[in-house]
């Protein structure tokens, strides 16, 4: 029978079908971090059970860590307590921890791929909705709640309902200055924040298959922003090449065996999806969000919609009030106070290269505060080796240490009330980057251009030189 990529991987992991259409799904890798794990560890202790497979869990501290002076004790008492609890729990149960100070520390969805932990055909879960990132490798990866973190700790399995399948195909050629972030913001602007709910998405088409692994991760990362459980892309030579030689990737003969299997992971020609969408790469332009959910995106040269043009006029009114914007206005020329480049969406070495390539020899606008937070220690060190740190410093950007940072403002990296932040992160919800903060989501190139100009601009008018990556 013809199968989708999703079905092939899912079927490999079904332990048993149970009552009510639920399935016991085996999990190959469980990633944990300090914020959504402590209550799961307590649950395990209270039940008096063991963690079934500590060898399948990898831990890091990312959500709640400072991005300055990581060698010093964390100042915020509650944050310190949570990070310490993770360390204690990992010690008690014998779980590998890449905590603060460890050369592998970083955002959980950045370190998995860069260490070769993430591989095609796997099932991967984490108590974080952006776990969908790992789907870029042709893995089934999705975010779970803390009760489910405890489930996986206790049994290495989840009791889940099989999601429906959706394919989003983008054929054609992307224009200059258009990046993965623009593609995914474009898709979410079409489908809305609930358009993918109940589904697992496969991204396909020539515009997707031509992307680097970093760019594919950016796309899969934001699948959750249209409500999808996850997103995936069939593994190909780009994937195999990326995985090859990574720390925990199979080596030698084992690698060859693995590739042989990975090559079977694609959607069969006549496989049927529950839902399909098709878009043209040529229709995609640099995107920016104007509202308070990731579906509120427009092309950067466009105008904010009017109430009669949207399905939820009340919601639009409320979000524009929060954002200090008017229906029908153009965003070009809007003065910006902060630029944040980071998060599990756009903090990989390719993102930093795009930014550095553009800002080299330029200076940020005086009134803009520009912060770059690399996704991991390894990204930071790579940036230093390539001289990117110097380029950024000369352009007036502050290069921090790795963590989730101002994407969710759990640590002290917050945007002040009422100020505008152009951000490469994934969510523009009210208060996401700090109470009252006004977030506009963009690609790294757009963010870099706006940092230099100090206002919203179309990056294509300033740089048509695509970065070689």
């Amino acid at each position, binding site marked *: 029978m013809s199968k989708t990529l999703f079905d092939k991987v899912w079927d490999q992991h079904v332990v*048993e079908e149970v009552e009510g259409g639920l399935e016991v799904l085996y999990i190959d890798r469980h990633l944990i971090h300090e914020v959504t794990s402590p209550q799961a560890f307590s649950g395990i202790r209270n039940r008096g059970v063991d963690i079934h497979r500590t060898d399948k869990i990898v831990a890091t501290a990312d959500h709640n860590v400072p991005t300055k002076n990581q060698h010093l004790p964390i100042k915020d008492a509650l944050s310190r307590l949570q990070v310490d609890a993770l360390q204690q729990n990992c010690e008690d149960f014998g779980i590998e921890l890449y905590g603060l100070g460890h050369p592998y520390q970083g955002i959980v969805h950045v370190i998995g791929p860069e260490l070769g932990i993430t591989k095609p055909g796997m099932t991967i879960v984490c108590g974080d*909705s952006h776990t969908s990132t790992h789907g870029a490798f042709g893995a089934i990866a999705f975010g779970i*709640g803390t009760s489910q973190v405890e489930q996986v700790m*206790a049994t290495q399995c989840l009791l889940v309902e099989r999601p429906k399948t959706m394919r989003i195909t983008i054929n054609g050629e992307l224009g200059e200055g258009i990046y993965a972030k623009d593609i995914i913001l474009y898709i979410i602007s079409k489908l809305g924040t*609930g358009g993918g709910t109940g589904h697992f998405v496969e991204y396909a088409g020539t515009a997707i298959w031509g992307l680097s692994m970093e760019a594919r991760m950016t796309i899969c990362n934001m699948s959750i922003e249209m409500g999808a459980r996850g997103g995936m892309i069939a593994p190909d030579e780009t994937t195999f090449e990326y995985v090859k030689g990574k720390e925990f990737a199979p080596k030698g003969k084992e690698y060859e065996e693995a590739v042989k299997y990975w090559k079977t992971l694609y959607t069969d020609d006549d496989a049927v999806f529950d839902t399909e969408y098709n878009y043209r790469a040529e229709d995609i332009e640099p995107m920016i969000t104007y509202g308070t959910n990731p579906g509120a995106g427009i092309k950067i040269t466009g105008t904010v919609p009017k109430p009669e043009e949207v399905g939820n006029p009340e919601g639009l009114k409320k979000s524009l009030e929060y954002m200090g914007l008017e229906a029908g206005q153009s965003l070009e020329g809007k003065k910006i106070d902060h630029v944040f480049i980071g998060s599990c969406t756009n903090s990989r070495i390719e993102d930093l290269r795009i930014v550095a390539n553009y800002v080299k020899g330029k200076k940020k606008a005086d009134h803009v505060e520009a912060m770059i937070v690399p996704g991991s220690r390894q990204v930071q060190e790579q940036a230093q080796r390539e001289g990117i740190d110097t380029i950024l410093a000369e352009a007036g950007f502050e290069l921090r240490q790795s963590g989730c940072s101002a994407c969710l403002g759990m640590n002290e990296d917050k945007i002040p009330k009422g100020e505008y932040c152009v951000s490469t992160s994934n969510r523009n919800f009210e208060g996401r980057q700090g109470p009252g903060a006004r977030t506009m989501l963009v690609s790294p190139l757009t963010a870099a251009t706006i940092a230099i100009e100090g206002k919203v601009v179309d990056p294509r008018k300033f740089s048509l030189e695509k970065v070689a990556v």
Partner: protein
Amino acid sequence: MEKFKVLKTPAVPLPEEDVDTDQIIPARFLKATSREGFGENLFRDWRYDSDGTPKEDFVLNNEKYSGKVLVAGRNFGCGSSREHAAWALYDYGFRAVVSSFFADIFRGNALNNGLLPIQVSDEFLKKMLADIKKKPSTPIKIDLKDQEISLEDGSSETFEINSFKKMCLLKGYDDIDFLLSKMDKIKEFEKQHVEF
């Protein structure tokens, strides 16, 4: 988990659509290492000014409304997977959330914590909100066994729930108890499962 019993209670209306979990419980309140106490900061930034003064126009600060059911607009619980959102609603005293559409992860988290997500039609949601507005004390009856939600005037709608999850809620079981009973099968699976 507590057993879910028949509810007959007034409801709190929150007609906004796309209520994300960052609004339900902002990230800066996720630093706790226990499950308790999140109700205090439920809808924190909609409920309080930055200096902690309650915002009069927010529904949780309006004494006309109370009860164990939250009635919310479409796509409730989108965004972050934080289970703290379900904990906060439960800790505040809610036992059910009614909406015409739920985000997947929130729905699962709610079910795992004895908080019943009830998906109704857009029309029924509209009627519920109108009835509550007209008479804030109007009782809503939720019968999980019959999968039925009914209003004071006798109008009602049935709702869907996975039969296993329904049993868990009615008996106060959780998924982990069930999975632990399958350990032999899981270990058997592990013997033949190849991971590259």
